[in-house]
């Protein structure tokens, strides 16, 4: 399976994502330049973390208009898997691939820390190798990660099982203290209505080896392999 990792000016996790795919999964990966108009036959697209276009105007607002995003939108519309990680999540929201938006952290500070998320839906193409309610240790690193959406959208996400990851404490409880950025309902990751676009603030590609402190992110990528192969 071929993963296409998009590099925007200011992306800084593209290399990590590339290595997670090639070294950990043993699958093929290719870098896709933001000015290109070709996904080069990629089966899965990764919008990586970073500070595309310096976060000018709003995080993700300008990257959304990069030429390659037209192809990414078409890929997503056709049911192709897309993962937006951190800045990639912000870009996916700005591009309308996912509902809602990511705003400045409630406490105004940049947070770089390992946090815990609970798997809220283990029946998506990105989470089928996790257990329901399993607690994962994955790092976050962001200043604009507070997920917000209108009440009716939040209701829709919750009722359709599209909240995939939620910030929790060590015991798995959803608490205000476990919420690192003030996200509505502790939301850390969501999927699109079609289930093929995942956006999340935590960095699974940085939790891919015991050397990195956690391997909990590996099964996210492996889940896609099982689903697409099946």
């Amino acid at each position, binding site marked *: 399976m071929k993963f296409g990792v998009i590099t925007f000016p200011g992306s800084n996790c593209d290399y990590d994502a590339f290595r997670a795919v090639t070294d950990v999964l043993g699958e093929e990966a290719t870098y896709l330049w933001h000015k290109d108009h070709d996904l080069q036959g990629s089966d899965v697209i990764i919008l990586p973390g970073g500070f595309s276009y310096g976060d000018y*105007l709003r995080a993700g*607002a300008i990257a959304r208009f990069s030429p390659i995003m037209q192809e990414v939108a078409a890929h997503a519309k056709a049911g192709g898997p897309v993962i937006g990680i951190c800045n990639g999540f912000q870009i996916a929201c700005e591009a309308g691939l996912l*509902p809602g*938006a990511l*705003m400045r952290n*409630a406490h105004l500070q940049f947070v770089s820390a390992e946090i815990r998320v609970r798997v809220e839906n283990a029946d998506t193409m990105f989470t089928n190798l996790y257990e329901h309610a399993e607690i994962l240790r994955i790092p976050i690193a962001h200043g604009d990660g*507070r997920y*917000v959406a209108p009440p009716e959208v939040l209701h829709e996400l919750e009722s359709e099982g599209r909240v995939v990851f939620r910030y929790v404490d060590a015991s798995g409880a959803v608490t205000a203290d476990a919420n690192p950025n003030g996200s509505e309902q502790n939301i850390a990751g969501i999927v699109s209505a079609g289930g093929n676009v995942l956006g999340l603030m935590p960095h699974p590609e940085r939790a891919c080896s015991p050397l990195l402190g956690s391997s909990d992110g590996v099964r996210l990528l492996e889940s896609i392999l099982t689903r697409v192969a099946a």
Partner: protein
Amino acid sequence: MSKFRIAVHITPRKGLLDPQGNAVKGALQTLGFKAVKDVHVGRYIIVEADAHDAIAAEEAVTDMCNKLLANPVTEDFEIESAVPS
């Protein structure tokens, strides 16, 4: 076609948590400005553009706000009258 200058105020949507505004409010109150009840921090954008008339210029900037300058989920915008520049 003439050149116009159109200014836009973009503010956090009412009712949404505005941590920047709250931080500035706290600082002002600490400074002794006890009358301060609320503060909101937004952006001020100035667009210079060619248009047939002021109305057309304002319409164009409204379109720009809807498509890029403001986030429809989290922000409100207000356009000032276009002035020849």
